[in-house]
């Protein structure tokens, strides 16, 4: 395991940049100042039908100074990593605070946090940026060839890799250096015939791992790529030939490969306290789970237990300290179906009288200010819960939903609609072939209230996304969501073909 922050980052004059920026901010009267130095390297590789259609390797780097001056935020960022630039950024951050003061009626104060110092590196074995480009392309070419040989008409194969290196330092004495690595591989197959055209994407979730996630095997504890690639061609043909679903109400057994996204949208975003208080009202929206309902809101059935964390191994939101220098942790959000907690940053924690943030501040680059972003929000399995097969066996008429696809939810996180990669009809406790053109639609608390059975630990999978958006200017964060399979009763199912027929 690689466990050191790479010297290409630690060899930067990090201490000198921090000293220069923070001292200048202190001299100008800031009551709080923090400096981030960030370098984020991203690569992308895309093949279409086995041939290279796009590849890139980009590194974004810069420093950012954030101050609180007379109770008002000021923020400035620059891609120039010199002490002169750090000083100038501190001065401009103070200038931004001053130009903003006439608009500020709410004094910014931050919940306290002990000073921390140290290094932290995420859990991965092979740095994807150490793998020769030719080897990366070769692997995706091999995957594509295998799928085309098995009869699909088109294959899209792609992988994104990110290495994020970050210094955080503040006037409180915190000085932390971190490195995180994540990868997101995917293949999509397409078949067409006189019956139409159909697509299917792999289920492998993005993860906080390195290249071993692509090159390894199920036996090595990573993803079973050989198995998934072998199955996809037949599965997509079965989907193409499948009957269109009859709309109505069904019991749904939802696989973790689909349920993670429903958790993300209907729990993850709904329990961001900045949203619940209205700070995202103009853009991402607010939340039905308002702060006055903390401790009383019946979010779902008593089988529902949800945690937030930034510590689970291979989690995409996992880190050592957040972007306000808060040590990361795990915390309850929903316990026995009741809302008991929110995701916080230091300002929001202080606003609501809490003694400490739970470490959910994040900025996606040096160019952006940290805002409260999502922890790994996960549904806990039932300790002695059933297998997915057991869940299916208990359903008389239903659908087993696998893989995520389309998603949408309203700006208060009430009304959502999701589709999936594949859907299996359940009749009398048995899978009875695929159906297609299915979307499920519900209101959040009704949906979670209908969760009558939760799968056991053997069904739990850590899913997630690279592309969670929030804030203005827009920021993108990667986040994981673990969940078991679960049974939801009486969920409204739409036929998407009928929905689109005017």
């Amino acid at each position, binding site marked *: 395991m690689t466990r050191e922050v790479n010297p290409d980052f630690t060899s930067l004059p990090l201490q000198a940049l921090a000293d220069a920026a923070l001292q200048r901010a202190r001299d100008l009267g800031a009551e709080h100042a923090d400096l981030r130095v960030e370098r984020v390297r991203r690569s992308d590789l895309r093949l279409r039908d086995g041939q290279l259609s796009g590849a890139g390797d980009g590194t974004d780097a810069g420093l950012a100074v954030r101050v609180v001056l007379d109770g008002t935020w000021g923020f400035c960022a*620059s891609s120039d990593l010199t002490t002169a630039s750090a000083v100038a950024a501190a001065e401009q951050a103070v200038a931004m605070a001053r130009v903003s003061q006439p608009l500020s009626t709410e004094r910014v104060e931050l919940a306290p946090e002990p000073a921390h110092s140290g290094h932290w590196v995420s859990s991965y074995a092979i740095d994807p940026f150490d793998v020769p480009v030719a080897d990366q392309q070769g692997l995706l070419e091999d995957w594509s060839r295998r799928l085309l040989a098995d009869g699909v008409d088109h294959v899209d194969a792609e992988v994104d890799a990110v290495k994020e290196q970050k210094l955080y330092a503040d006037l409180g004495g915190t000085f932390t250096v971190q490195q995180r690595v994540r990868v997101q591989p995917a293949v999509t197959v397409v078949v067409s015939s006189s019956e139409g055209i159909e697509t299917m994407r792999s289920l492998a979730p993005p993860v906080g791992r390195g290249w071993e996630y692509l090159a390894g095997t199920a036996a090595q504890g990573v993803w079973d790529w050989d198995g998934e690639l072998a199955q996809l061609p037949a599965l997509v043909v079965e989907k193409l030939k499948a009957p269109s679903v009859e709309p109505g109400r069904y019991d749904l057994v939802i696989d973790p490969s689909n349920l993670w996204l429903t958790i993300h949208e209907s729990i993850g975003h709904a329990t961001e306290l900045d949203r619940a208080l209205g700070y995202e009202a103009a853009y991402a*929206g607010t939340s039905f789970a308002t702060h006055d309902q903390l401790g009383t809101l019946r979010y779902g059935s008593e089988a529902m237990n949800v945690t937030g964390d930034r510590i689970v191994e291979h989690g995409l939101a996992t880190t050592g300290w957040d972007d306000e220098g808060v040590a990361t942790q795990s915390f309850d959000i929903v316990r026995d179906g009741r809302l008991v907690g929110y995701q916080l940053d230091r300002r929001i924690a202080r606003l609501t009288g809490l003694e400490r943030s739970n470490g959910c501040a994040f900025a996606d680059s040096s160019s952006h200010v940290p805002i409260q972003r999502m922890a790994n929000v996960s549904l806990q399995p039932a300790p002695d819960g059933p297998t997915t097969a057991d869940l299916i066996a208990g359903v008389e008429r239903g659908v087993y939903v696998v893989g995520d696809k389309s998603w949408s939810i309203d700006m208060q996180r009430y009304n959502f609609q999701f589709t999936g990669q594949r859907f299996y009809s359940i009749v009398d406790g048995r899978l009875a072939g695929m159906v297609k053109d299915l979307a499920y639609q519900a209101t959040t608390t009704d949906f979670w209230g209908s969760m009558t059975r939760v799968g056991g630990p053997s069904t739990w999978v850590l899913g997630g996304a690279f592309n969670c958006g929030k804030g203005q200017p827009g920021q993108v964060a990667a986040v994981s969501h673990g969940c078991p399979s679960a049974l939801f009763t009486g969920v409204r199912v739409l036929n998407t073909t009928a929905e689109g027929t005017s």
Partner: protein
Amino acid sequence: MNVAPAELADRALAAATGPCVVLVDVTSTANLRWAANTLTTNGLTSAYDVTVVAVHDGTRAGVVSRAGVRPDDVAGLVADAESAARLASPSQDAAPLAGGSAHDSFGEPPAAVTPSDLGHLAGELARVFDAARSVGHEHFGYAEQVSRSTYLATSTGIRLRHVQPTALVQLNGKSAGRTRSAWAGTSARSLDAVDVAALSAEVTERLGWQARRVELGAGRYDTVLPPSAVADLMVYAYESADARTAHEGRSVFGHSGGGTRVGDRLTEVPLTLRSDPDHPDLTCAATVLATSSGLLGSVFDNGLPIGASTWIDAGTLSALPGTRHSASLAGLPFHPFVDNLELTCPGSAGSTLDLVGDLDRGLLLTCVWYVREVDPHTLLLTGLTRDGVYLVEGGEVTGAVTNFRFNESPVDLLGRVEAAGASVPALGREMGDYFSRTAMPPLRVRGFNCSSVSQAS
């Protein structure tokens, strides 16, 4: 930025041992964000990055980008790109690099944004906040001024500079208790050109319309879509219209067995969807500036001119955006993606409210939100209405109704347009942060599919 972008580009070309494209992007931004009549965040940023596209054997490309590159680091960046090119597989989109000449502006410095660019806006917002407080309203929103200067230099002689200023202001007003919500937004080249007071007045008027609530269930309703909502739907369609995906039959713009639908009539209404870099209100880059290859752009196409393109001509699909490679695959003329979009209908005039005036019973939307693709083959989209849905009776707004989840295809909607107004500059509520240069008419459509009620307000 302490180093001249042109110098960085020239150094890179000097270090290159083969065909090469260099793009230097310099971005300067300032922004303010507010909630509940108080500032929440702000930012002033300056950043630059250098992208080198090295070409090996005419078919292999190495594309490497780095931020904050110092002059002494440029040769190393070029070497990394050339190494990547040598190791790369042949690129599908490989094509000869465009030739060209040097423009005088290439040596000019990048444009920069300063805190003072926010001064006018901050003063206007302070007045808006005061007025809102006096009537118990709250304002939420965001404004930014962005200046992006792009320098393109190629081993084939091109030296040009493009400066793209973009300003956005989005105002979201809410009544006491936040039970009513209204939105107005606009884009411009400068924040100084934005009439914040006019946006605020529009928001206040709309909040007044929501004083009367009317219960209405899900269903299909004849609906007036204002320009902002039309912008979001048309931009989604435009960005889904790449030539290759259509050619492979994988989008609504292709046949399921393969081949594009160019030449097919999409609607009997003579609507025209087009893009033009020289549009006087929507000026954008007239040259391909691509830092990566994908369905809508190719690094090999850098420097090629972008002209006006008509995507839908009087109701008939007439062109699809893409690259030289995808155009060749599809057997179509090459039409590069353009960073603006305009929908017009000949002879149509009038405003959103004029279309409302001719609606006997139906809905008036404000904007759409969280729009996502459900089915690429029909371009069925799902999303929510937001910030005001109004019941129209007898040509007048008679009250506010709930929000809805909709399931609709913008392509199918074009076939159900019953009336269009004048095309005006419009900012999509959802896509406007990323695609702000649009001019759209209000549209009145038949049977807009409100699939279910959303409790969100």
